[in-house]
């Protein structure tokens, strides 16, 4: 992402705020991948844990479990943060990647 100046920290477009969150990744080929973001880089390459592909036809959908995925950034259209349910928030607070990345100085 960009080299942040002092005022840019608050404007950061990095995916750091999305770490350990359940996300929707839309790909250029139309696929929808759901998973927990574990890692990313400046090209928007991403590591999704517990990934599943959701196939939607009309009112019906099904999830195909995929496991651990690395997505090449050039295929990413958007990464969306999903509204999280309360239980998921509670379990996420335990030992997450975010805590191990204190040096990122995100908050």
């Amino acid at each position: 992402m960009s080299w942040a100046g002092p005022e840019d920290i608050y404007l950061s477009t990095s995916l750091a705020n999305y770490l350990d969150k359940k996300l929707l990744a839309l790909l250029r080929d139309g696929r929808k991948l759901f998973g927990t973001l574990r890692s990313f880089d400046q090209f928007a390459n991403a590591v999704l844990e517990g990934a599943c592909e959701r196939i939607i036809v009309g009112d019906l959908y099904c999830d195909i479990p995929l496991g651990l995925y690395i997505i090449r950034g050039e295929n990413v259209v958007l990464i969306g943060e999903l509204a999280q349910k309360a239980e998921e928030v509670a379990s996420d607070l335990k030992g997450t990647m975010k805590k191990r990345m204190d040096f990122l100085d995100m908050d």
Partner: protein
Amino acid sequence: MLFFSYFKDLVGREVTVELKNDLAIRGTLHSVDQYLNIKLENTRVVDQDKYPHMLSVWNCFIRGSVVRYVQLPPDGVDVELLHDATRREARGG
């Protein structure tokens, strides 16, 4: 750099980002970076019925390379300022 600076001034405004895959997303511009990647907040999709998977997405990161248009409010553009900045860039570059 010109459009990066321009979008930085637009942070906090409501914009509609139209992507190359025809998806159009309306939201508040949260941040932008040198690649013109865009982060939107309070997002809603323009044609919600066509994109049901986007229903529970409230913030998103959009890769700059997939943006076709960024639609702005008419008062979001100070045309004179933009003209001047463009002339300066053209002279310098």
